[in-house]
């Protein structure tokens, strides 16, 4: 361990420090708004470190002439790929922190704990995307998940507690399954680092009827089950709508965007770096999970009356679309189109979903209900939130000019490129189905409010407004001028693929 190792991990370390600082400040400061501001403004520090790391990269993919692929004796690695996710997590975190400022106040949530846990979870996510061996992967994953479980339960009411417990049990279960899979992989490869696993498994005699082959297969399947829970992919999706319904809405926003993104990063790295040389045909496995996720998610979303449950099922469906890109990765060993399409989709989905859920949290606060029917008359009450929600909902359908339109074409092109035409067709048909329930929400907002409920204007705080505007603009920006982010995603994908080759 030396100074360079610390520098290469500085975004993660500084955000963990910021989390602790936030909790400490909360103890001594009476003005709770200050705590939020410290959490928000403090994000500049990890962001600055991450930026300086990006500009430190030279052509040979090294930082400052230091080998960035083995930090702290091969515990972590640093690449454009992991930095890409660092920025995604930091961006989502900044938007969620700003966007939950009024929610936390109005719902009476404990401020220090709320923001501290958010930051802690983010530090776990950022460690996870650069974790290099099985132990750091597991620890980072737990650091990601446990604060989120606490955040789900932070509202301390029946629903919230239920969802917190549910989340905790499900993640413990999935971690256990995943650990079991890791044990198999470790046992058969004799290494805990991803590259070591790759090297160790290459000596396993595949295609023969050896016990090793079945061992590896069992390990991979167990891993996939564990990851499936984190990805909220079917058939491991049952917890999603319940947790979404009960948790505070900004937490749901963070959960559905950042936590999902790093889970995908983990899957990509594990299956690309760790198991990349393995000649097992798991493309079909991913493809089937993808098809089932989008079909099931979309079909179940149709009958939902609660907007948060609807978004729960919608996130399952989108996990399916993204998995299409993951399935496309494995066929073409050298090409990085599948990976970069996943990376682009994650950003597009993050911006759309953050916009939607922050708007929903504002509406829910004001209307006092998350039932879709209670959204009637919203276009009069808050034109601002209506526009934001319309943009994000048409984005989630995949209608231009929004990011997911491009992202879907990207992902489906990747699928077609790797011979998965049928999966692309399933995805396209699913987009048609999804239009039905998303558009219904748009329709309700423009309907006039029949019962003389509250028809006063909704006031949205400045910071929240700013957060929503930024994420909505990103959605439109990705839909109209996607080239820049696509280029970055491609660089990140190449940096992942280069590790393999």
């Amino acid at each position, binding site marked *: 361990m030396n100074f360079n190792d610390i520098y290469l991990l500085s975004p993660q370390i500084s955000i963990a420090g910021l989390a602790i600082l936030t909790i400490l400040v909360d103890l001594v400061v009476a003005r709770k708004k200050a705590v939020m501001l410290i959490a928000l403004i403090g994000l500049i520090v990890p962001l600055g470190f991450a930026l300086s790391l990006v500009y430190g990269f030279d052509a040979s993919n090294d930082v400052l002439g230091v080998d960035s692929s083995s930090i702290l004796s091969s515990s972590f690695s640093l690449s454009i790929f992991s930095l890409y996710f660092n920025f995604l997590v930091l961006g989502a975190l900044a938007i969620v922190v700003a966007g939950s400022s009024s929610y936390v106040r109005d719902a009476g949530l404990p401020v220090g704990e709320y923001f501290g846990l958010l930051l802690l979870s983010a530090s776990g996510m950022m460690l996870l995307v650069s974790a290099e061996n099985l132990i750091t992967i597991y620890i980072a994953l737990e650091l990601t998940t446990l604060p989120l479980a606490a955040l789900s339960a932070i509202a301390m009411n029946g629903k919230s507690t239920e969802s917190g417990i549910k989340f905790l049990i499900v993640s413990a279960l999935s971690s256990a399954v995943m650990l079991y899979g890791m044990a198999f992989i470790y046992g058969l490869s004799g290494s805990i680092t991803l590259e070591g696993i790759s090297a160790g498994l290459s000596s396993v005699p595949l295609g023969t009827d050896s016990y090793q082959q079945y061992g590896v297969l069992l390990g991979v399947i167990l891993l996939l089950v564990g990851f499936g829970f984190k990805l909220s992919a079917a058939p491991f999706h049952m917890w999603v709508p319940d947790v979404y319904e009960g948790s505070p809405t900004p937490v749901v926003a963070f959960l559905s965007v950042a936590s999902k993104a790093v889970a995908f990063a983990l899957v990509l790295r594990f299956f690309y770096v760790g198991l990349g040389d393995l000649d097992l045909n798991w493309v079909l496995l991913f493809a089937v999970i993808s098809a089932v996720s989008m079909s099931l998610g979309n079909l179940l979303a149709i009958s939902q009356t609660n907007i948060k449950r609807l978004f729960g099922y919608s996130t399952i469906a989108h996990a399916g679309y993204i998995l299409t890109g993951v399935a496309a990765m494995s066929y073409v060993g050298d090409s990085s189109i599948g990976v970069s399409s996943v990376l682009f989709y994650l950003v597009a989905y993050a911006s759309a979903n953050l916009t939607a859920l922050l708007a929903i949290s504002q509406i829910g606060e004001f209307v006092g209900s998350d039932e879709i029917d209670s959204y009637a008359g919203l276009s009069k009450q808050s034109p601002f939130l209506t526009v934001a929600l319309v943009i994000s909902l048409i984005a989630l359908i995949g209608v231009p000019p929004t990011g997911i339109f491009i992202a879907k074409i990207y992902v489906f092109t*990747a699928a*077609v*490129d790797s011979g998965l035409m049928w999966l692309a067709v399933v995805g396209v048909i699913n987009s048609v189905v999804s239009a*039905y329930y998303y558009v219904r929400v748009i329709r309700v907002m423009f*309907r006039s409010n029949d019962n003389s409920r509250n028809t006063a204007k909704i006031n949205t705080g400045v910071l929240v407004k700013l957060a929503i505007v930024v994420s909505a603009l990103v959605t439109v920006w990705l839909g109209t001028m996607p080239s820049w982010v696509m280029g970055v995603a*491609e660089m990140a994908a190449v940096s992942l693929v280069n590790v393999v080759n």
Partner: protein
Amino acid sequence: MIEFNGLLTATVFLPALGALVLILGPDNRFFSRFVATIVAAGDFVLAILVFSLFDRTDTAARFQFLDQWVWISSDAIKSTYLLGVDGLSAPLVLLTGLLGLCAVLASLKITLRVKQYFIWVLLLQTSVMGVFTSLDVLLFFLFWEVELIPMYMLITTWGSGRREYSGMKFLIFTIAGSAAMLVAILGLILTQGDQALNMMISLESGFGLMPSGGVISLSLLFWLFFVAFAIKLPVWPLHTWLPDAHTDAPTAASVILAGVMLKMGGYGLLRINVGMFPEHIHSFAWILMILGVISVIYGGVVTVRQTDLKRLVAYSSVSHMGLVLVGIASVGASYTYVSVTGLTGAAMQLFTHGTITGLLFLCVGLIYDKAHTRSIPQLGGIAQRMPIVGIAVLVAGFGSLGLPGLSGFVSEILVFFGAFTAFPVLTVVAVLGIVLAAGYILWMIQRALFGSLPDHLSELKDADRLECIPLILMIISIVIIGIYPSVLTDVFNSGLEPMVSVINNMSVINIGLLGN
């Protein structure tokens, strides 16, 4: 590589800019109406500029006013922001500008949520303009998709009757068509490579002659594109969304829907199915012909039975759009040189149906506003009280049944001349559609306009000056084209000739191969 003229970009995005001004501006009726009118009028002027500055000389470039910009350049997707018009799209841009203005003028009396209404109308205008001017398949698809939500909102919020049902039906049908198109585009990228998305390249010779890609997969792509456009056109049996959507949509939405959005289907067929798949359109023309004839006859027969004025016009659209398919099917003429006549007829039919049906919908809207009913049995003799609307209905009706001297005649005669060389018997059957048209139009005019005025309509008022403007604009266009059709046919010819020559070159090659 990078060219930027700017005229088309302005034409396409001026309405979107207007919508943005409305979104950010105050929620004030007069402001909204003012902005929408100015923007629509400005866009009409730009469309006139595009049409009149379009170089018609023989040496002119095929695609003009190019706006070209690298839009997406990644390993997986390469797409350009490429706008341009040729002889096929320039008149349709003009049509969109004209109908856009008429639609806004016809909606000035709307009082429900004026601001939102005009936002959706203007977004719709941008989307349709974009479809007609995109020369990149992905960009074309983008604009094609943008139209969904505005139209859905217009039908469900400002419509009447079973508007929720009709709106959702419209949405599901259209998006199902889009899904087919998206799969086709993905297939195009897969089999033909990225440069196939650039229409300027892929229209050069079409895919039939390109060596790569199996014939079977190309046929599949052809049919996927066909389904997308057939839903929009609409072609029997995919037409069922149209009568519902039309009947329940507000007047302006009906005008845009019938006037320009159905044309997106016809335009897509001409541009992509004919232009890019010359071999397939030639060999599958008989199927198109059969579907077209069924649409013409079925639409006509059903129209005769309608008692709701709006439904009547809607079903007559099915019949008239069938003629577009009949005109396109003229490329199926075997072993003779395919002439451009039928295609020009189809394109003319798109334009004339746009103005004629647009005018009919405006009149029906006016009658409904004043008489509060669209049911023909409850009307009668309203020409006594509404002479101006009566004249407009007469002009549109006669245009619709193909009276010489009005624009409808030109397009129908061209369609039949073209189709007769390819499918004489079926063309004769299709001509029966004209007889039916004469039947339902004249019968409708006789029952609704003439006869004795029922008592409850004695207070009926005629169209006021403001309402006259769109009527007059459309009547002028119908009469001018009827008297002097070359103003359009020449332009259409110049755009369609290159496509026909691709088909002819191909049949020469085919005959040559057979000879060996």
